[in-house]
């Protein structure tokens, strides 16, 4: 099923590529079908942002920053009834192997739009009518699944900014490689695989706030992929919470707004 020059995505034991040696172009296998790439999250990494987070997910490296709620400019974007959540997704030119042109591409804008639509339902926007909450996602290094990584980091940065939310938003993808449904596609799997299905979940409410699909899945495979990604979101949710605990462990409460 794999294309001519594609590596074997699964080895004889059914394990996936875990690492690539770029010098000899050799692959080491060892990742299970339901295994996530290693994820590390750190909250509060930027001084001048109201809230921020840095996330590494496999070889993805993502910075997210939140500003606001603040006055919404241009004013035509304002909503007199609630705050608007605006997301800017940007890939650094050096984030991929062939340099990307700086500036918002068609793809960047779409990802920003779907990310803001995934974050907004979790925010108590009615508390800040007329205001804007600006979230910036910078992809420093990309290795498949940047929208999931960006969204996961963005939610931590919003919590770090103290934005009132119904819950954190967590995102993860599942996909299909060599006729198998697997969790969290890596670069090779995304490129040579058959399908990619990123979803985002508010684990506290169980709501699905983003669902996209690239490629073909049968109805059964679709259900299986959703289940896998949905379940993984709960594991990632624990990592998000741990990042916030690590940041605020031992620090005093700041007393609140009264």
């Amino acid at each position, binding site marked *: 099923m794999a294309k001519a020059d594609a590596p074997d995505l699964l080895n004889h034991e059914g394990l996936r590529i875990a690492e690539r040696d770029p010098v000899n172009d050799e692959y080491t296998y060892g990742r299970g079908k339901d295994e996530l790439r290693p994820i590390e999250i750190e909250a509060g990494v930027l001084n001048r942002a*109201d*809230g921020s987070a840095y996330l590494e997910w496999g070889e993805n490296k993502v910075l997210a920053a939140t*500003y*606001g*709620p*603040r*006055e*919404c400019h241009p004013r035509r974007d*304002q909503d007199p009834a609630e*705050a608007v959540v605006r997301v800017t997704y940007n890939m650094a030119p050096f984030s991929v192997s062939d340099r990307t042109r700086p500036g918002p591409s068609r793809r960047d804008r779409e990802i920003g739009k779907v990310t803001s639509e995934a974050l907004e339902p*979790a925010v*108590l926007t009615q508390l*800040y*009518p*007329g*205001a804007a909450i600006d979230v910036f996602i910078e992809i420093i290094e990309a290795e498949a699944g940047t929208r999931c990584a960006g969204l996961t980091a963005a939610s931590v940065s919003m*919590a*770090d*900014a*103290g*934005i*009132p*939310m*119904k*819950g*954190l938003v967590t995102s993860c993808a599942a996909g299909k490689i060599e006729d198998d449904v697997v969790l969290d596609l890596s670069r090779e799997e995304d490129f040579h695989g058959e399908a990619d299905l990123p979803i985002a979940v*508010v*684990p*506290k*409410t169980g709501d699905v706030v983003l669902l996209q699909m690239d490629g073909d899945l049968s109805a059964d495979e679709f259900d299986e992929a959703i289940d896998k990604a949905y379940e993984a979101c709960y594991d990632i949710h624990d990592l998000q*919470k741990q990042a*916030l*605990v690590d940041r*605020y*462990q*031992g*620090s*005093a*409460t*700041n*007393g*609140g*707004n*009264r």
Partner: protein
Amino acid sequence: MADSEIVFPGDELGVAEQFMPGDGAYEEDGMVYAARVGEAELDPGSFEARVRPRTQTPATLDDGDIVIGRVTSIRKSFVSVDLEANAAEPGRELPEVGSGTLHISKISPDYLDQIEDAFRIGDLIRARVIDDDPSIQLLTKDDGLGVLVARCPKCRTVMETKGDGLVCPACEWKERAKMAADYGLGNLLPPDNVDELMEQREQAQRDHGIDFPPRPQYSPGNGD
């Protein structure tokens, strides 16, 4: 300080029959949940469930808060002030709150014949919020409140104090102003030594103050 349990957005705090959602909490489907990261606080006295935040929180504006603002327009009896920040939370921008209004009667403890004797458009001022609903009303009567930085209306140089008035170091333009005691010192909140600064200013006024021509004083019942 002991680490009590940290709650996260979406964690259950209690049942709506038992608690009202307070600061940092929200109610949905009969339950009260946390809306931010912090320590849960269930107040049996006021029946409120709150979350004391561990994170920074968005800036707020309430009665009694000190704000930094810029004078944007001057009318016959009031000035409009663009609110830049809550002086106690300078790191966070204010959510959209519109502008504040400062009535002529709330500007100075003395009678003020015309607002131009206190403020000019573009002045950076410190004021206190005396009403935040339905619109934001401000006051600058206290010694620690008033103009923080003003520019010369002729040459835009930053003006310096000279006794009770302001003088432009470049073109020697002089004008009256309702200055904060710590004009030009770069503080956001009023300093502790406001009285001392006011005494120094009075002394300076006696020593080398500007002699402005007298303005009409308020006399009750003069017809208008």
